[in-house]
């Protein structure tokens, strides 16, 4: 079945540094979504990308969908302590477009 992969699972950065993480799918995706889960919280929808090569920005966060629609990236400019959490990518698979979630990357930011 479809797999959505995120490597590594953890990353530590100094506040103010930039951060980039990637998500790779074993199959072509109709769309890809990103979610953020703060420590002790629940996943919160951030963005959806649909078109090949699409780029979307939310303040300091930039999301990109690959040309082949099999990978995606999340870039955070000048990380802040508020960026701490786990970022999941997810892609639809199977009947009813059920979402398959990656393992997530947990970001910690040193003040």
């Amino acid at each position, binding site marked *: 079945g479809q797999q959505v992969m995120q490597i590594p699972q953890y990353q530590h950065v100094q506040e103010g540094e930039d951060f980039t993480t990637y998500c790779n799918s074993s199959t072509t995706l109709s*769309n890809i*979504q990103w979610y953020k889960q703060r420590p002790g*919280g*629940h*996943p*919160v*929808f951030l963005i*959806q990308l649909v078109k090949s090569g699409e780029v979307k920005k939310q303040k300091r966060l930039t999301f990109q969908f690959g040309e082949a629609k099999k990978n995606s990236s999340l870039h955070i400019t000048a990380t802040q302590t508020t960026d701490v959490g786990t970022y*999941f990518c997810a892609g*639809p698979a199977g*009947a*009813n*477009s*059920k*979402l398959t*979630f*990656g*393992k*997530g990357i*947990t970001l910690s930011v040193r003040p």
Partner: protein
Amino acid sequence: SAVISQKPSRDICQRGTSLTIQCQVDSQVTMMFWYRQQPGQSLTLIATANQGSEATYESGFVIDKFPISRPNLTFSTLTVSNMSPEDSSIYLCSVRQGGNEQFFGPGTRLTVL
């Protein structure tokens, strides 16, 4: 986005007992899902809750262990039956309103002793 509440928010249960988790949404939604998230892990889909019919379970999850009800478009329950310590996890209700994005409830943190 939909506002989702779950009850209970947490519980500690004895082995062999059952717990029913409720999920209430403030508006009608097209699809409702139940996920499990073990500490530090990703989200695993248990089943899709279908309104007025039996839930659709994912591989590795069965109705006898995780019976689900969805009597209407705003409410669903998940029961964790005959619990064992391996069932200790966070259980999350999630909904889709018509688009592809999903919204999650606050979760139910279950500990089985």
